[in-house]
């Protein structure tokens, strides 16, 4: 299984207690699952009770927002980087 790096940005680094994690996963969804297994406190920060990814979370596979590819089924290769980023959704009052 490919070894990939997950980089946690902004508030998500606080929830995991670090900015970087290494996991083995074949897809973006698999990488997120492996991350949550390691850091259970992240589960409710990333997903709602029905398993849907929360609003205001952007997930990138390297430089591609996963929605522009195959979502959580986006395949990963050895050395890929998955970014979990607070979505750029400022301006709300």
């Amino acid at each position, binding site marked *: 299984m490919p070894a990939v790096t997950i980089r946690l940005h902004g508030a998500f680094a606080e929830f995991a207690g670090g900015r970087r994690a290494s996991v083995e996963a074949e897809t973006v969804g698999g990488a997120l699952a492996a991350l949550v297994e390691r850091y259970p406190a992240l589960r409710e920060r990333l997903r*709602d009770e029905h398993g849907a990814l929360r609003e*205001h979370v952007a997930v990138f596979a390297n430089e591609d927002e996963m929605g522009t590819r195959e979502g959580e089924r986006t395949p990963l290769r050895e050395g890929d980087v998955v970014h979990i980023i607070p979505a750029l*959704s400022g301006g709300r009052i």
Partner: protein
Amino acid sequence: MTKPRVAILVGTKKGLHVFRSSASRSRWAHEGPYFAPQPVYHASFDPRDGESVYAAVNATFGGPRIEVSRDLGRTWTTAANPAFPAGSDLTFKRTWHLEPGHASQPNVLWAGVEPAALFRSDDRGISWQPVRAINEHAERPHWSPGGGGLCLHSVGIDAADPGWMTVGISAAGVYETRDGGKSWTNGNAGTRSPLPRGESLLGRCVHHLVAHPTRSGVRFQQNHTGVYWRDGTATRWTDRSAGLPSDYGFAAAIHPHDDATAYVVPLHDRLRQAPPPGIAVYRTRDRGASWKRLASGLPRGAQLEVMRESMAADRLDPAGIYFGTTNGEVWASADEGRSFSQVAAYLPAVLSVSTITS
């Protein structure tokens, strides 16, 4: 014997601020903000164990969560989220109110959330179960969101009967249980609707509801259409708006010892700011039959806004009265409202004010 101490828990748009004082309530030490920059809709002290504080942190990034402190708000642990059951088309969006249960149920805590629902914890806030009888109430299809969304924002626990609870939902109105949450009835009788609904009891717009902490049956609410009082086993609310400058407002507090005394901050119904001549607390000492304007120490002419959860009393004698404003001020009275002094200014918008008396 330890001298009593007081703290004000101030939930703001960007975190929870805590102000602590001796019983004199003349000087306040500031702590926080905790959880900044996330909005804190409510924080609640648990007088049953004298150590727990609960906070409703409604984060944009990472979603809503409930935080639990066992040391009066100095350190915090994240609880499991309230969660709608599998198959529900509802998703937990934010927490509006956290209410310690009856004194005879020391581990029970209640959470009012959005979308409008009630959750119960039996382990002092660590985990939550939905109260399905209210969450799936037959009248739910008739509930519609108010300006803040469709939320359950008020939980009143009867002083004597742990099975008797009264909740406020915007915009649905008041619902009540006499069997600890197994069944719920519409409790809107006596209140007016802002809409032409005829005799229907659906669609009332309760803004904030409180139950008296020591007198069974006493309920008090600030509604979109006025201030209403209910005593004892009465089944209808009595309109007690006469004497106030406006029917409209959000904040409401009840005196901790005197069951005939309560406080509101009337607002202009369109501007949602204090009407001329400016910000004031109104106090009744006769269950709303008459009202007195209290503004000593408050800025003259300031048309400030006070949100639904932003006024509270402490439990000392004489009682302290506190409120916060959306322009980031916190005001305190150590003499039951006769005079006020400023505790803080330039905070982020204040969303909630509650107290610790320990």
